[in-house]
């Protein structure tokens, strides 16, 4: 075993919100106390949600997330989550 110390990711709980098509696919408007590590890339966060709700794969490449009401594209961008944060699944918009 090497002697160096790495900072372990924290694990905390977030509230996941589902809108439009994602709510139909999961059958849920929201899910409380979803355990997630932090920090986490948006891609890993999406993968985590896919594991919980495989039907969300229909939205692959046509979805973004919103963390604390800020849009985050699915990719390498790393987010730091706080306990109780809102994470929303955001299908393509169609207001107006």
């Amino acid at each position, binding site marked *: 075993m090497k002697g160096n110390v790495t900072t372990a990711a924290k694990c905390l709980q977030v509230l996941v919100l589902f809108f*439009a098509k994602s709510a139909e696919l999961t059958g849920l408007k929201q899910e409380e106390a979803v355990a997630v590590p932090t920090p986490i890339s948006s891609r890993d966060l999406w993968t985590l949600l896919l594991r919980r709700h495989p039907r969300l794969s229909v939205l692959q490449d046509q979805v973004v997330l919103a963390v604390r009401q800020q849009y985050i594209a699915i990719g390498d961008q790393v987010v730091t989550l706080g306990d109780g944060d809102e994470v929303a699944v955001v299908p*393509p*918009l*169609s*207001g*107006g």
Partner: protein
Amino acid sequence: MAESEERRDVFKLSRDWLSVQEVVDTVSSASCGAISVFIGTTREDEVGGRKVIGLEYEAYEPMAQSEFRKLCDDIRERWPTVTHVCVHHRLGWVKVGEASVAMAISSPHRQDGQQAIQHCITQLKAQIPIWKKEVYDTQEASWKENAECWWAAHNKPPPDTQL
């Protein structure tokens, strides 16, 4: 803007039919010679032999408010003479022929208001977390996607992953 006048940026989501008069009254100002208005109405479209009978709208309400505030800041940066902005948007069931969105922008002269209102509806479609589902006379339904929304199908993502 008159010195004592505070800028108004009003965004309202409503399950009731929209009053264009209320939207106009919200932006009226003695310092403004122009009120630019846009109303989006529900079209009776025919898609693959099925007729649209109405739309069902939902929204991520707190985020729609915060994105609207960002949009107003953007509008005022581009057109500093814009005085007041008001957008009312429906939620829930909207029949064909009814207004889904009504917006008004007041400005001292018409050029800025007219350009700002175009930008306002375009950016609403691109950025505000609202979704609509078309409901057909066959009782089928389908979630729509705005071309303005960059993560819609057939659109390429931007090179920078942060919005």
